[in-house]
């Protein structure tokens, strides 16, 4: 494809951007939305932008949402662009989600489990009826009830299954994982790279792919072993100190999807895991990610690869909404020369056909 540099249009662009700024602000008689309000009251949008922008910073994500007028893909794009201006200090110690300070933790495989089912701040069990009370400005809601907390951390469901030998253990390894922000993806991609791509992937795309595996495109029979959401401590070992220190806490959501595995010549029948981990409170995304992660493990588990969600190149090259929007939206850019050549070709074809027709008529 070819592009032509075109001059002109600056005044039109400036006017368009001025109008955009006016539209973004909306009616000046209304109070302006503050970043603190976005962070606090549109928290799940902030979480989604951080996850898909692959950059955890609530304030920056709120700013991106304000700047993009609530276009969350545009906001993720802004966050991705901003992160390229920052130096990387290094990599954290792997987050210990087993030590998560739980805000929500549920399992669909065990009713009674150590630590119990903790619903947390969930939309589940709401009636999905529009609440017109929210349309009227009113007093803040009463504080949520509190109860004595017995323990802060809870064992993982996968651990319970693993203790019985029913769950395939994750191979222990401290190998330095590949990083697709530093080296372009190559196929086949190992699971570390696949999980990185899925963690920053588009929620909608992964949701649809995950759904397809349930509907028969991939023969999955998943159970939610566990979903947990809460705060984990970020630890980092600066070289000048020589020991790890705590940098703070972030909220993450983790999903362990339990799938059946028929076994092979060397392994007995057991359960296998699909894994989802995302920044913030992103339950749907973590579940979709876990379904797709499991589907992408088909090859290593000796299963047939015949559904879209099982095809690495298809999933990993199309799950990034910043890349996808870039390539789809680039079609808006001037393609004058490309199109001119197509136009000429078409005219030529038509002229040739017309002449042939005339010749036939004359004969």
């Amino acid at each position, binding site marked *: 494809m070819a592009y032509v540099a075109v001059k002109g249009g600056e005044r039109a662009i400036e006017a368009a951007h001025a109008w955009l700024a006016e539209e973004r602000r909306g009616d000046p008689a209304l109070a302006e939305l503050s970043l603190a309000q976005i962070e606090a009251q549109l928290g799940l949008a902030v979480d989604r932008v951080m996850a898909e922008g692959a950059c955890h910073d609530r304030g920056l994500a709120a700013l991106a949402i304000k700047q993009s007028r609530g276009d969350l893909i545009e906001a993720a794009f802004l966050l991705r662009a901003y992160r390229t201006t920052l*130096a*990387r*200090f*290094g990599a954290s110690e792997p987050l210990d989600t087993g030590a998560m300070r739980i805000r929500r933790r549920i399992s669909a495989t065990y009713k009674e489990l150590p630590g119990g089912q903790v619903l947390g701040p969930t939309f589940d069990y709401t009636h999905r009826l529009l609440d017109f009370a929210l349309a009227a400005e009113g007093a803040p809601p009463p504080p949520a009830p509190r109860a004595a907390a017995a323990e802060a951390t809870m064992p993982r469901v996968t651990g319970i299954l693993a203790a019985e030998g029913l769950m395939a253990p994750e191979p222990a390894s401290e190998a330095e994982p590949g990083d697709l922000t*530093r080296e372009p993806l190559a196929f086949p991609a190992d699971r570390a790279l696949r999980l990185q791509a899925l963690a920053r992937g588009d929620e909608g795309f992964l949701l649809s792919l995950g759904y397809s595996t349930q509907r028969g495109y991939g023969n999955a029979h998943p159970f939610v072993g566990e979903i947990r959401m809460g705060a984990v401590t970020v630890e980092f070992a600066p*070289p*000048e*100190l*020589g*020991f790890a220190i705590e940098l703070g806490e972030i909220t993450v959501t983790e999903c362990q999807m339990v799938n059946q595995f028929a076994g092979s010549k060397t392994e007995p029948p057991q359960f296998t895991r699909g894994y989802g981990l995302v920044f913030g409170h992103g339950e749907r995304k973590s579940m979709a990610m876990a379904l797709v992660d499991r589907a992408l493990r088909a090859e290593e588990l000796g299963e047939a690869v015949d559904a879209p969600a099982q095809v690495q190149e298809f999933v990993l090259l199309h799950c990034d909404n910043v890349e996808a929007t870039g390539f789809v939206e680039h079609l808006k850019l001037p393609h004058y020369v490309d199109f001119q050549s197509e136009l000429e070709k078409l005219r030529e074809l038509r002229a040739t056909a017309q002449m042939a027709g005339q010749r036939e008529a004359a004969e």
Partner: protein
Amino acid sequence: MTAADPSPGLTPGFAAPVPAAQSCFRALLEAMSRPGLIQTLTALPEAPAPLAPAAAAAILTLADADTPVWTDAGPAAEAWLRFHAGCPLVADPAAASFLLATASPPDLALPDAGTEEEPHRSATLVLQVAALEAGAGWTLSGPGIETTHRLHAAGLPAGFAAAWAANAARFPRGVDLVLCAGDSLAALPRTTRLEETR
């Protein structure tokens, strides 16, 4: 308090890291585009001995966490580089993206010379010399030099000219060289030819 803390004795890096690294990068770009022409740096870091300011500035500008560095400058300089550039330090010259030599530069055949497919992945050697002087010494020619240019670098190891000719013979593979003395530097990209003038 902790005996393991290797940071006491550390000195600051660039006073204003972003503008200083940008102006040093500009000087390095000029130096590489006009081989042998001496560039004087203005924003210099407070580097520990034996590092000269220009050599320290060049490494601080070029190296980061993704570029392994080899150096013979000793533990104080290593701690300073690790702290300010955030670069991993390696003992094997062949494993480094940048090499910072103060007293005993490695054989020019040792650093990574890139591959025929990707010659730009080669290493750059920052070599600290006693003095740089224009208008004397070698006669330089090659891309970026209209006719010839003269540069004298004092304190290079014996046999350097022959090693440099061998480096040029591997083109497009090869290493590039940044010579530093005090607050000045001059570059010899692998395409520059040297003639010893008497």
